[in-house]
């Protein structure tokens, strides 16, 4: 087991005692099983400040489960997860901004009500910025979320997640269902978060587009980390770009 930030006692992870503030999230020997099916198996992972991580893998490899565990929407079956040195509770949700792949915003809310909801629920939500970006993208504030096109809904959920001043941002398929121009906007905003030294976890099937915003690639296969490393180092070691490496890792399985 490789948990540099956890002391071990009787082969169990103990809560982190060091005060390394550069560590945003730490997963030690984390497993998640759903009544017979293992979604994640003995995952050890450390997310450090200012780094951008790409979760890569086919459907059902455990990418979403991993994000939901860190977001506090799932509970692990085994192992320990900490965010900013603390175990996952409702308090850690204030520093984690997670955008699920589903259009999670209430259909019966207007866009304006959604903004109000986020402003009320998250102290770190920038209401003015959210309104400005939405209007820039021609998303009317009075319209009901349920009436928005799938592309507009995708943009809305991205914008409300983006406009939080969190420590860790997790985007599950941020490029799903949006047009080319909106993709440029998403990529640009993700780059902006990197320059602000925020920690990013991004999962996407569009490996080549994600390549420009990630520092570390984590290849997940059947709930295991099949390969992990700095994007540039992996490219140097193998002489392959991310797409080729993706094919190599998953074709071999």
């Amino acid at each position: 087991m490789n948990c540099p930030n956890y002391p071990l006692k009787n082969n169990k992870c103990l809560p982190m005692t060091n005060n390394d503030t550069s560590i945003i999230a730490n997963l030690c020997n984390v497993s998640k099983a759903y009544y017979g099916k293992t979604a994640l198996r003995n995952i050890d992972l450390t997310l450090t400040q200012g780094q951008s991580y790409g979760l890569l893998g086919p459907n059902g490899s455990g990418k979403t489960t991993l994000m939901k565990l860190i977001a506090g929407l799932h509970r692990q079956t085994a192992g320990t997860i900490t965010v900013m040195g603390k175990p996952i509770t409702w308090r850690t949700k204030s520093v984690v901004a997670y955008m699920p792949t589903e259009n999670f915003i209430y259909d019966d809310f207007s866009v304006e009500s959604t903004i109000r909801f986020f402003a009320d629920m998250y102290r770190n939500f920038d209401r003015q910025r959210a309104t400005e970006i939405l209007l820039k993208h021609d998303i009317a504030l009075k319209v009901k979320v349920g009436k928005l096109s799938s592309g507009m809904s995708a943009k809305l959920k991205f914008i409300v997640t983006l406009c939080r001043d969190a420590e860790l941002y997790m985007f599950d398929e941020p490029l799903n269902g949006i047009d080319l121009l909106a993709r440029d906007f998403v990529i640009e905003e993700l780059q902006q978060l990197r320059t602000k030294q925020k920690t990013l976890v991004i999962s996407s099937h569009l490996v080549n587009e994600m390549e420009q915003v990630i520092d570390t690639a984590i290849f997940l296969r059947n709930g295991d980390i099949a390969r992990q490393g700095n994007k540039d180092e992996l490219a140097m070691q193998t002489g392959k770009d991310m797409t080729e490496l993706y094919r190599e890792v998953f074709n071999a399985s």
Partner: protein
Amino acid sequence: MLLKLIKHDMIRRAPLYGAAIFTIIVLNIITISIWGVSPSIVVVSALPISIPVFFMFEVCTAYSRELTYKNRYMLFMTPNSGYKIILAKLLSLIIIGFFLVGVYGLIFLPNAIYISKQVGPYASMFPDVFKWFKQQDPMQFISLAIHAFSGIIGFILCIFTAQTLQTTFLSRIRFSKLIALGIFLTLLYIAGYCFGAISLFVQDILLNYEFYRQSSFIQREALWGIPMIIIEALGSACLVGFNGYLLEHKINL
């Protein structure tokens, strides 16, 4: 934050409740204008009764929707403890319940006054009813209202508990809805049985005392009713705590 949760819950439900109340009022007016006052009892009671029926339907489905629909993440990603979320859900239903009682009265009273003026045979019915009410001990109705109120809260919490269990321990089990229904019915039976047994126990103890046997109805009600209300409140608090614990520690959304 609790108040903000309640506020947004209300904002979400407002259009649905507004539409339902508007429909009931329009149906009420149409019924009276088409059939006149001949089906007076139906007009007085049946249409307004659709309000509590609608409320119960909402009680059964509102929390379940929050846990199982695609937008379930919206609430559970917020930095609010499970205890706060379940309490907010309960309190908003209580507020809506009181509001609907008011709406019921507003529809019922004009109907009653109108019909009592129009219909000969029924003209004396309402004054007779009011006379009967006046003859009764008001404490009887207060006591009945308090027990009915705590009974409704217990009923709502039994539904909540079954639905919370469905999203936690039973989240990945086949037929989880059916099992949750079974749990709900079992909980309801246990709650009813416990209430009956404790009620008899308290009464048996009190009957040993001379002052209880010789006391008036109001005094008896106070001596028996107050401990029972405390027990009911404790039972409800336990269910809120249990639901909050599950949402906080065992959730699988």
